[in-house]
């Protein structure tokens, strides 16, 4: 049970930064709690990120894709004798040992279609249909509903140039990206904003963009990382660090969406997966470090649209599958555990004879976090995830 400790001012902060495979979006809300959702686009292979090395069927199915067992050189990072983290996830492993990271295994949404594009849409809309908003936007709307808007302020910020479906919708959300051009002087932007005022599409965008830049500039100090390579300025760890700083501010946004790609490992998976996993790991560590004191009021959900085939395909990769992992991290998370019912990898235990069988509904994890961390009531959860009555909010995600 949790009640918001205080109300922050409602900022017009929501937005999205994107460069290469990574991007970030943020939204303000009247709560002291912070919620970060990390979308891994392209379908993370859960069996490689959190390896069930204790399952006797694994080696026969995965062969060379399985890293050495814990304790050996380049080996898995043990999670208690049955599962092991991929060696690139050392930072997550440390958080797990500190009780601040939890793994849920054999997770899937309600969809079973194996299409990236549909599955990502359903994961972000929060239902298997096109709604007028993403589920995190509905969370922002629900949190704001009871609050008195501060003067002239909107509700949400994304860092990135594209707005993810997850945050789209009627609750105002803007976005932010590290600046890269010389900036005109005087009232140029004000005049441009006035010209766009009557345009239903670009008008609100320019207005929100101006507000966000003002806020981000003040919070992050000097233009962040104007020097440096684009990959460093815009890479996932850098965006996560910027998000952390914005979220940590007293009057900052409270909701953030980050995304990272590179997971669609149809070929040469062992080589291709290590890089994105290292990026993810560094970004999650940067989030924790950057949030500082606010980390104990932060919960992070890491999710992907589906998992990958249990067997290695013909090109040392894996194809689109079903069950995968989700991560829940944060200062209040009841971590240090791998949760979920392990379905097994033996013949007869696989979904459609090819995929990890899903035993936990992704929506139940999200609902459990929204209930425990943000104090959303059951009727609000039903609006955030329409038609999800069967996916009960997962209990025990946070420490009492």
């Amino acid at each position, binding site marked *: 049970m949790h009640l918001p400790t205080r109300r922050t001012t409602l900022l017009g902060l929501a937005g999205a930064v994107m460069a290469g495979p990574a991007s970030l979006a943020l939204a303000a809300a009247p709560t002291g709690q912070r919620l970060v959702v990390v979308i891994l686009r392209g379908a993370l292979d859960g069996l490689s990120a959190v390896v069930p090395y204790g399952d006797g069927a694994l080696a026969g199915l995965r062969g060379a894709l399985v890293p050495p067992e814990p304790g050996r050189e380049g080996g898995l990072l043990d999670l208690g004798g049955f599962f092991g983290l991929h060696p690139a996830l050392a930072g997550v492993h440390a958080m797990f040992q500190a009780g601040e990271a939890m793994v849920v295994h054999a997770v899937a949404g309600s969809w079973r279609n194996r299409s990236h594009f549909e599955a990502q849409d359903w994961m972000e809309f929060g239902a298997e249909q096109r709604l007028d908003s993403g589920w995190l936007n509905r969370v922002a709307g629900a949190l704001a509903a009871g609050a008195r808007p501060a003067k002239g302020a909107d509700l949400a910020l994304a860092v990135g140039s594209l707005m993810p479906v997850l945050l789209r919708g009627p609750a105002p959300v803007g976005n932010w990206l590290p600046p890269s051009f010389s900036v*005109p002087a005087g009232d140029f932007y004000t005049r441009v904003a006035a010209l766009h005022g009557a345009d239903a599409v670009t008008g609100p965008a320019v207005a929100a963009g101006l507000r966000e830049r003002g806020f981000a500039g003040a919070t992050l100090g000097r233009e962040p990382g104007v020097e440096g390579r684009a990959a460093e300025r815009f890479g996932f760890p850098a965006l996560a660090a910027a998000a952390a700083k914005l979220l940590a501010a007293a009057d900052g946004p409270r909701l953030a969406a980050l995304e990272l790609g590179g997971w669609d490992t149809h070929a040469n998976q062992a080589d291709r997966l290590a890089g994105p996993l290292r990026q993810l790991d560094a970004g999650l560590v940067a989030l924790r470090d950057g949030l500082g004191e606010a980390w104990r009021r932060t919960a992070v959900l890491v999710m992907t649209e589906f998992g990958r085939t249990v067997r290695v395909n013909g090109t040392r990769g894996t194809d689109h599958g079903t069950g995968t992992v989700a991560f829940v991290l944060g200062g209040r998370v009841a971590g240090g555990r791998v949760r979920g019912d392990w379905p097994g990898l033996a013949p007869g235990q696989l979904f459609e004879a090819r995929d990890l069988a899903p035993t936990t509904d992704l929506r139940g994890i999200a609902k459990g976090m929204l209930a425990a961390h943000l104090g959303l009531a059951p009727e609000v959860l039903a609006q955030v995830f329409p038609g999800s009555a069967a996916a009960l909010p997962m209990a025990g995600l946070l420490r009492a």
Partner: protein
Amino acid sequence: MCHGCAMSQRGLHAMNRFGLGRRGGEPLPGDAQSWLAAQLEGADPALALAARDTAEGLVAWREDLRRGNDGVQASRAIMQEDTATLLDHAATTDRPFRERLVWFWANHFTVSLRRGAVVPVANAYLREAIRPHVTGRFADMLGAVLRHPAMIQYLDNTQSAGPDSPAALRGTGAAQGARMGLNENLARECLELHTVSPAAGYSQADVGQMALVLTGWSVALQRDPPGALFRPGIHQPGIKTVLGQALPAGPEGLATAVAFLARHPATHRHLAAKLVRHFVADEPPEPAVAHVAAVLRETDGDLAAAARAVVGLAQAWEPLAKLRSPFDFVVAVVRAMDLPAEARPRMREAMATLGQPVMNAPLPNGWPDTAKDWASPEAVMRRVDWAWAVAARGAGLEPAAVADRALGPLLGEATRGEMMRAGSHREALALLFAGPEFQRR
């Protein structure tokens, strides 16, 4: 409005909506629809531009691989030079509708530089698989795409092997045989994105069967010249069935699948909806989609006929209804300024900064095509920033004249008034490019 004004507005609208924006003072079409239709006749002039073909690209890639880790130099140089040629063509072509169609179809059949092996052949792919068929038959474009090394490598088909193929059954050369097997990436995207779409209701079994059809379509990198190759040794024998259609073994299987999928009613609807969304409205009106789909069906997938049908839609002539993508926006600004080549801004960098790096879509479904995808606050702010930056190059230009030529009666009084009150030529030009009208087409 006077008759002449209406004429000029219609001509300017055609140049914006179906073209890449008016280039300087290029002549306004007298009859907008004839001007567009004429661009569909004859060969694509871009095919005459100097550029490297796929074999040259693959030789560079082979050399880069041989040199090791930091060796994408030769491949990257080819990509950069040929992309510059391509963007210069976009900035200057007098057949901009043709070019827009090329980019539309290239996006439909997305390959992305995010996959290293695509880098040296991405431009060759446009020339070899897309351009020759933009006014031809969809089946021919689909067939060319699925057999092109860029797509084969982008969607991981190079080594996809049938479980009962000769190589797999031999299985002896353990390292080889045992490890080779099926990869269903290209098959899934072919059904979902390139042809019938999920509306056709195909199953996982259909995807698997299509993957078997595609086994063997590979790239011979070590051969001279290197190129696409059908490898019978890894092709799955036997008849396959996709959406109820029997497909023979061997290379004929793909030919039969292409003919079947290209002619499928679900494909016609899928293509029609995308064309209408791109050229007409974010929410494609159903009668318009049905009309274009019917034209595709009646002409057996004639893409020139489909393009003419889109131009003929009454809804396509509502001015400024679509938001320009970053690509279109950058090209339109460069055309409006009509600068000599050496004075133009770096278009490839600009497109990347504005969120749409050339041929670099994040996923195989390509770039999105609606205003809400491109109008996030930061995305629009970046256009404003770039408008200010690029206006610095317009020292010799008369802003009011640029505005009249590019937008004429489409430019609103508010923007025109702000330009008049601007403190400098640069500011006036920046206001034009940053204003609401220029974001649209």
